[in-house]
């Protein structure tokens, strides 16, 4: 499955300062959700200090998630089922002023 990931607000610092990444998730028998995407990110993209991005099975509190510019709280949060060409944005609200 083809997705665009965006990191902003300081979250990009955890991903080698790359703000935009396009990824292709392997085809599983089960469908992808944000929850499983986070596990994938942790294993494939996060090189250092994973605890600054992921805590438990979710993002660190204070990191806002938007799916195609819509608040993930409106979309079932971790259980949102990803679709082809979705844009997932992670904005850290933890940096700067």
């Amino acid at each position, binding site marked *: 499955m083809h997705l665009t990931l965006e990191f*902003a*607000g*300081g979250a*990009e*610092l955890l991903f080698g*300062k790359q703000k935009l990444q396009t990824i292709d998730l392997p085809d599983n028998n089960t469908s992808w959700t944000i929850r499983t995407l986070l596990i994938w990110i942790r294993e494939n993209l996060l090189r*250092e*200090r994973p*605890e*600054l991005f992921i805590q438990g099975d979710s993002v*660190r*509190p*204070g990191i*806002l998630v*938007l799916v195609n*510019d*819509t*608040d993930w*709280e*409106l979309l*079932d949060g971790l259980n949102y089922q990803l679709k082809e060409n979705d844009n997932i*944005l992670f*904005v850290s*609200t*933890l*940096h*700067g*002023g």
Partner: protein
Amino acid sequence: MCQINEEDDEAFQALKSGTNKGPISRKCVSCDQDACVVVRTADPMCRKCFEEFFIHKFRSTLSKSNVFGRGENVLLAYSGGSSSSALLHLIAEGLSVQARRRLQFQAQVAFIDESSLYSDVVSVREKVTDLITNRLQYPLHIVSIDDNLDKDDDFQQLLLERTKTLTAREELVRRRRLKLLFDIAIREKCTKLITGDNCTKLAAQILSDMAQGKGAHVALECNLTDSRNDLVTIVRPFREITSKEIAMYNRLNSIESLQNADISTMSGPQSSIFQLTETLVNDLQRQFPSTVSTIFRTSDKLEKNIRPERCDLCCCPLDINVDESLISDQNRQKLVHQLFTTSPNSNEPVHVCYACRRLLRDVQPNVQSH
């Protein structure tokens, strides 16, 4: 000792209000459009209504208090972060000729450049100059964080080698930044200093200040206007706006913020008192969505300390007796003069508040000579 108090459970219910009310409606609370963001505790809003709500909140905070005089010189503290970027955007719109209720002050912008503290950071001055001077055409004042310091006593070395804890480093930077902003404002005859402090950050700041013995100042730190400096009043128009709302507003308006590293970048949630507190507040906020607003409301009910004697580090009113607050150590006195006074060679006695006195204990005042 068992600490359960009478109203504990009622308080939890109040804090929990807004959670677990089943799936949130996907419709905007004010119109019938599809929502794109959840604001306050659980209100879905569409893009248009959210932007109106956001701008209204900002403008009403500014106008209801009537803080700015016509033609007043106002200094905007721009850090490049998301809050101050949004602030700059809103103020630029408010000052523009097309604005509906046009803001009437004269804006100037200050940028405190911290890049000299970090070896691997590219200079951001060009970007800042381009944005402020070329595009917005405001007078811009860039000052380096180690401006005015002697060569043999630079700020980077003080912070990284002679300051024991990240807590103390963050606090020294915070105080020095503010001091420099005041200096610029006074030099440029600005009587107001606008900062981008938002509600989420202030809530964490309140608790973090409490933990550092700064309770006497929390009422001042989160107020709309802060008059700790007699010549320059700090104004916080974002004090009722959450960091999530700001992030959303920036996204919808494609407002870029400069992500430059700061002293705490890449440090974990346990690395300093502020980091630890911010983690706690965000954690609680996720479980109890009214956490931030409750902290904020509590501090709004507190009286400001108005003692005339001020701390020479944080400029806040002293919270201990004048004789207890006097620094006797010559080296520490010199350090405070260098970092925090406009006349670094003076021999005037230095007074500090309880929290700053505690802070200075983590700082080794002079380099050991070989």
